[in-house]
């Protein structure tokens, strides 16, 4: 069983559309994250949730809205997609919220291409 699974793996869409990426973890972790990896492979945090509560909301456009229905799920909805949103989006989880020794478990990524 995959520890952190996200769907879809690939997402190709037109500018202006609305799309969602789903993420589920079966590790029993308290904290989940969304990261964005750009074309230069730079990985930057977007959001983190701890026990369904939003903890980190980096300078991400309002068009991005995370939703955590329960501890095991963190979905990402994106409105009015723009060309610059093209990237690989990674979901991750950790046992607790960012401690010095916390290990992040990543999903395999969703490659979003906005045409």
């Amino acid at each position, binding site marked *: 069983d995959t520890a952190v699974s996200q769907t879809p793996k690939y997402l190709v869409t037109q500018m202006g559309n609305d799309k969602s990426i789903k993420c589920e973890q079966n590790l029993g972790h308290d904290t989940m994250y969304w990261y964005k990896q750009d074309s230069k492979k730079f990985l930057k945090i977007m959001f983190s949730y701890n026990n369904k509560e939003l903890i980190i909301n980096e300078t991400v456009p309002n068009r991005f809205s995370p939703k955590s229905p329960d501890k095991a799920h963190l979905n990402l909805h994106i409105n009015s997609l723009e060309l610059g949103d093209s990237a690989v989006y990674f979901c991750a989880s950790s046992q607790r919220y960012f401690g010095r*020794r916390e290990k992040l478990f990543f999903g395999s990524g969703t490659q979003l291409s906005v045409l």
Partner: protein
Amino acid sequence: TQLLEQSPQFLSIQEGENLTVYCNSSSVFSSLQWYRQEPGEGPVLLVTVVTGGEVKKLKRLTFQFGDARKDSSLHITAAQPGDTGLYLCAGAGAGANNLFFGTGTRLTVIP
């Protein structure tokens, strides 16, 4: 945002060679992690170092945290094709409330 610069950005070596990847910052981190990412997959944690000067070994990989906790290095001995991948360092901020990733080093080991 605390910037972690990795060098080199790209590295292509022959199987059996040794290499070192560096991760540098002007900021102090409470801990430093190294991840390896393969194409089409998410990063996978290799090691966490917490104490300044700490050295950890994972088979042929040796990780060191700088004395001032601002930098780290990853040394690979006798590289193998299976070591090929994107290596990312990541530093936990002083309040341990965020994890900042480095710019990445893409390693290719040629058989």
